[in-house]
């Protein structure tokens, strides 16, 4: 029995990665939920928006690196984030003016907008591939680890090492700041409140003199920021690979719906629920169990419930279970 080693192994392979992944999903789901709340459709192009934002961050980071600009131990990508957000905002506002505005004017059914957003998804996907290609890129620089496994072992005297990547800490810190800023904006500012009012009751918002086009513009700006940050953090933590973001669309949507679509708090909760289930169910628990049980009990197999290939199935299983028992999600969102 070795509880401490078991705990460290669990933290190292489940707790910390899942927290970082959960924060990334939560930021992605917040974007999805904002669009659903204000523009009233499921934006299938959101994964590609994250990809596009991350791509701009990758390019600007490369530019900064070539100029010799760096942030020391922190990744240069943090400096590039604002530029990524600005370019993505430009892309989203242009898309809105060229594509979505027309469908708003003719009061198209939400399902039609979903199909339209799928078209936008393929266009964005093509743009990203044309600009940077499809290969894998690592753009994280600076210190790789905040806590190094070898140093941790030496310091604690445990067999099991704990490693915390800088990008994981940065993910959580940046996500916290972003979420705090978003909630401050939505709950304390007049413009943020008018967005919530518009999402709550569109007709009454119009009667109250709230300008719908302004609300839509601000929503796209927020979505650009959230998507770029989520995409860049995911890319920093893993690597930037354009087609990964299309797959990421699934857990992001699952997070938004599980939490209660249209509800920002729900998006955050949903992000962590999905991330923790995915990581827990696909982690091989052999090591943790070996530490916890007497020597002879050590399991023969890996004690991995699901192969990592099936991790997307986890999102869907949770999605179905939640929708069966609580159609509006864990937090009260809109029913779809």
């Amino acid at each position, binding site marked *: 029995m070795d509880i401490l080693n078991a705990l460290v192994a669990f933290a190292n392979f489940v707790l910390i990665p899942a927290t970082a992944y959960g924060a990334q999903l939560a930021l992605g789901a917040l974007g999805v939920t904002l669009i659903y709340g204000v523009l009233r459709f499921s934006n299938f192009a959101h994964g590609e928006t994250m990809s596009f934002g991350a791509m701009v961050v990758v390019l600007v980071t490369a530019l900064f690196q070539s100029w010799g600009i760096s942030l020391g131990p922190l990744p240069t990508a943090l400096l590039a984030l604002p530029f990524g957000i600005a370019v993505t905002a430009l892309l989203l506002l242009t898309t809105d003016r060229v594509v979505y505005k027309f469908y708003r004017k003719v009061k198209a059914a939400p399902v039609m907008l979903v199909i339209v957003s799928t078209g936008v998804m393929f266009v964005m996907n093509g743009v990203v591939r044309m600009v940077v290609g499809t290969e894998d890129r690592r753009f994280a620089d600076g210190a790789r680890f905040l806590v190094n496994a070898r140093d941790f072992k030496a310091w604690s005297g445990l067999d099991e090492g704990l490693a915390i990547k800088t990008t994981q800490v940065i993910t959580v810190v940046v996500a916290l700041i972003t979420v705090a800023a978003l909630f401050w904006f939505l709950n304390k500012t*007049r413009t943020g*409140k*008018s967005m*919530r*009012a518009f999402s*709550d*009751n569109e*007709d*009454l*918002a*119009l*009667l*109250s*003199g*709230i300008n719908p086009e302004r609300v839509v513009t601000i929503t796209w700006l927020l979505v650009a920021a959230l998507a770029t940050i989520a995409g860049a953090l995911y890319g920093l933590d893993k690597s930037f690979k354009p087609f990964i973001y299309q797959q990421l669309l699934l857990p992001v949507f699952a997070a938004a719906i599980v939490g209660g679509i249209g509800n920002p708090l729900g998006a955050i909760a949903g992000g962590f629920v999905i991330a923790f289930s995915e990581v827990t169910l696909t982690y091989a628990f052999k090591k943790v169990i070996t530490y916890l049980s007497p020597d002879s009990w050590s399991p023969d197999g890996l004690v991995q419930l699901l192969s990592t290939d099936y991790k997307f199935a986890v999102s869907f299983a949770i999605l179905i279970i939640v929708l069966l028992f609580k159609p509006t999600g864990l937090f009260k969102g809109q029913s779809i």
Partner: protein
Amino acid sequence: MTFLHASEMRGGYGSGADILHGCTLTVQKGEIAVIVGPNGAGKSTAMKAVFGMLNLREGHVHLGGEDITQLSPQERVYKGMGFVPQTHNIFPTMTVRENLEMGAFIRNDDIEETIEQVYELFPAVKDKRNQNAGELSGGQRQQVAVGRALMTQPKLLMLDEPTAGVSPIVMDELFDRIIEVARTGISILMVEQNARQALEIADKGYVLVQGANAYTDTGAALLANPEVRRTFLGG
């Protein structure tokens, strides 16, 4: 001088059939006018026509002497009209106070004084100011809805069946509050299902039948009119 003068209104929703067939409504300053009538008489439609929510094929709407027939509902809010829809008249996931703030969205001046006035008029609204409006009881919601409409400091307040679905006690209280609002000089135009109680507080009553004026008189006179009593008030 007549504050609201909607004359000979004819029209319906979109390009559909006419619902109003020459309906005329007038309200004086600080007066309570009530529209009653059988189901499907076009009561709510008449009020929506006054507020610009349907296209009039004939007739005019004048507010304070100005012709506003061509204005959109939003523009009419700027001209001093406040409208409380029958349903979906609050922002359910926002706090009561935020509902009031959103009501005053078009104002750029200090709204604290108006909020205090609403709190004074509806003490229940003040008590629940930090609670989400969607969590309140039916009667309290209506108070929030009326309070929200008062935030623009309207000169004409229009209420579409404000007592629908609330208990008789709450209804009496709501009517008392509406009288108080009228005493501050705000004109009130109200559609009511509870015809008898509404006519009791009305300075002027309109009985609509099939989109046209059937009887127009003071509230008391309509209540006393044997014909109106027999046909519309159940004896």
